[in-house]
């Protein structure tokens, strides 16, 4: 029996004992959220604090969440028993049903099972993948790397225009042959398409990787393994806006909602390549400024106050310049200088001049 399965049975036994002795059944686990997140200066990663939350059934505010947590635990145990994996969406549909003789659904939105699963990770201290729940594969990779996945050999340089999609669980992937020297991870899929068409990874011996928006767990874990096992520098390329900066922040230090997973997901080796405030002036991107709205401004203010940015002079300078501009810019603004300006000039120059933030 897998350890995760034993842990779930343990949880069930504890609750059954509560009930049989007439006690309000309760589950204890660490509180998630900014209030209980600390920045560990030694590891340079976020970590969850000591605060504990107790979720009980006979409490009007908790009852529904309690029900949902137990429900996903049951689903996970059934998956482990059957030795099958399910996606987050599958779990949602396995839990979704109407309680007989009522109009109450156990869950109404996938968000609810997703949250319950994150709680279950904390309760059991097993990551979702080990509870046999995976996310959808996401993003695209291309580069001079050959890997082995479940017995299949995959050459990241021979996958046509689409590249390879990163699965949710990358633990069993083996790196067979790696001749790339660094990785560029970019926020925008469109930029990845540009670099792929220009064969940037071939000309510069690197790996290019993207997913639309925030990074998935699979990608973060894969990048972490490349950084640790292959000692590869990881560069991040995002829009010049607070949301782009936060993508970098999550990759480097871990995220607030997944602070309990920071150990296996955070990559302290990540470097921020651009778009930097200096690039704006150097490449004349002011013409393509987009005025910051209220949300942008308040998000920027929050970022500047995070523990892990508070004492970082280089980052505070970026924040201040963005605030002074009162404007943001997209990576694609570089295309105004020519369609392949990014692959032929911008990136090679940045890397040559070591123009990045560690």
């Amino acid at each position, binding site marked *: 029996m897998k350890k995760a399965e034993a842990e779930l049975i343990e949880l069930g036994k504890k609750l059954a004992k509560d009930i049989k002795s007439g006690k309000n059944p309760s589950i204890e686990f660490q509180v998630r959220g900014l209030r209980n997140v600390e920045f560990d200066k030694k590891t340079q990663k976020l970590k969850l604090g000591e605060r504990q939350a107790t979720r009980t059934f006979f409490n009007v505010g908790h009852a529904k969440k309690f029900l949902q947590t137990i429900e996903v635990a049951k689903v996970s145990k059934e998956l482990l028993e059957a030795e099958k994996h399910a996606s987050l969406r599958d779990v949602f549909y396995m839990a979704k049903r109407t309680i007989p003789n009522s109009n109450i659904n*156990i869950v109404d939105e996938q968000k609810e099972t997703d949250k319950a699963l994150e709680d279950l990770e904390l309760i059991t201290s097993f990551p979702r993948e080990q509870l046999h729940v995976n996310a959808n594969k996401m993003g695209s990779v291309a580069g001079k790397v050959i890997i082995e996945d479940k017995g299949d050999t995959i050459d990241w340089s021979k996958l046509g225009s689409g590249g390879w999609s990163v699965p949710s669980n990358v633990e069993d992937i083996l790196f067979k042959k790696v001749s790339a020297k660094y990785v560029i991870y970019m926020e925008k899929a469109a930029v990845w398409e540009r670099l792929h068409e220009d064969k940037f990874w071939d000309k510069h011996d690197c790996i290019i990787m993207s997913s639309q928006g925030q990074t998935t767990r699979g990608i973060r874990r894969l990048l972490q393994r490349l950084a640790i096992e292959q000692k590869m520098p990881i560069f991040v390329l995002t829009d010049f806006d607070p949301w782009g900066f936060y993508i970098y922040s999550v990759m480097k230090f871990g995220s607030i909602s997944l602070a309990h997973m920071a150990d296996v997901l955070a990559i302290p080796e990540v470097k921020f390549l651009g778009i930097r405030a200096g690039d704006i002036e150097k490449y004349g991107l002011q013409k393509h400024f987009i005025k910051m709205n209220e949300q942008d401004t308040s998000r920027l203010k929050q970022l500047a106050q995070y523990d892990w940015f508070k004492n970082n002079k280089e980052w505070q300078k970026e924040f201040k310049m963005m605030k002074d501009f009162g404007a943001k810019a997209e990576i694609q603004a570089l295309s105004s200088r020519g369609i392949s300006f990014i692959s032929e000039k911008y990136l090679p120059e940045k890397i040559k001049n070591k123009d990045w933030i560690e």
Partner: protein
Amino acid sequence: MAEHKTAEEMGAQQREISVAEFFERNRHLLGFDNKRKALLTTIKEAVDNSLDACEEAGILPEVSVEVVEMGDDRFRVIVEDNGPGIVRKQIPNIFAKLLYGSKFHTMKQQRGQQGIGISAAVLYSQLTTAKPVRITSRIGSKEPAHYFELHINTQKNAPEILADKEITWDKEHGTRVELDLEASYQKGDQSVDQYLKATAIVNPHAQIVYVNPKAEQIIFARVSEKLPPQAKEIKPHPYGVEVGTIVKMLKLTETRTLQSFLMNEFSRVGGGTAKDICENAALLPTMKPKDMQLPHIERLVQGIKNTKIIAPPTDCIVPIGSALLEQGVRKEVNAEFYTSVTRSPDVYRGIPFCIEVAVAFGGQQPGDQPMTLLRFANRVPLLYQQSACSVYKAIVQTNWRAYGLQQSQGALPVGPLTVAVHLASVWPPFTSEAKEAIAHYPEIIKEMKLALQECGRKLGMYVRKKMRIGQQRERANIFEKYIPEIADSISKLSGESKDVLLQALQKMIKKPEIIQQLQMPEQEPEHKQIKLTAVAETEDS
């Protein structure tokens, strides 16, 4: 070049317009704009007169209203009361002469004001059907009943008597009016049915029997055997009069000096105050009223403004009383919670008034529609021009959300609610002669809002209590519904028997500490999620 007329030619065309002719062309001013409204206004004027007459004579009113459809948009309206009757000599003038009556010259709280009402209905009837009005009236068992058929001579504003005879009538005293008019009948908002129902609410001492055109008889029963006390007549307060009013008063007065004019014709003016007014107006107290010219009068008005005069007496106001008003509402509105309030009298422009409010909540009233508003002035329902009325403004400006109802900005609250607002005053300020909406005097709106708030607070307590009980029931329900699911999941996780868990959980729900949980007003959320403004942490898609 166009031909110009000489002053003589023009003078030949200029002549007096009779009041009757004027109203013939401006019927909307009196509430006869359309056929539907004409029917309502006619009945309203007749019923108002009946109730006023009964109360003045100290008789508990019994009014019957009958509407008969005659085809071709013609209706016959018959209103009969048990009032004191009208002396023979006065019958033609009261029904067939506009602006004739006893009410215009008195400052006293009553339904009618100008003496236009019923004669305007007669005129309308005459214009649309050419039929005369038929009146039967008897003033006592020793007198015969008189029967009249009347037309109005519109040029002279004078009655034309078509028939005048003595008849036998089984009623000891009372008046019966019968007239034919072009009209249309509909149920629902602003209908005769609704008007009579509202009238019954604010006149719990009256019995009204109504037969509608569908020959359905509706009886609005009497719930109070007590007649409302007679309102006292008061003299105008100086703060409420304008130049025109004073001109008229000066013409009619029998006093010899300005000082005695002020002391005798106004309320709250004694010798000292009269002298103060004269001094502030720079006029001699001994001046003869007949010698006063316009500049003097203007100075007098200014002088009044600059003189401190105590507020008018308010004992001339006869409110319905909160208990009776509530009883009236209970009788006609099926609800589960009632409350009411009568404010103490206040004064606008020197005229005393008093606001009363009754509220009915819940029951069979629809919960997803705007509330029902019933407006009254001196026991008369106001059915038209709701949004132009100060009552509407006062309701909209009251925060009903504080009392557990839904309300959008600048709108009536939504919920199973009826609110009745009554204004009692010796001179209710209407926005037009049709007496459809109460004018926006700040003093009046303020009193209305205070009354609404007072009722609202009591309503809020009830609504919240009701909500709390509902929540408790729902909470207990939630646990009951969840228990089988929880038992099943935990049984599958632990391998324990589902039935054992089920029974243990069901036993727990009856424990005192769990029941206490259900009764707690607000639950603390488990752990409040820190809100990262607008950051959706979507890295786990």
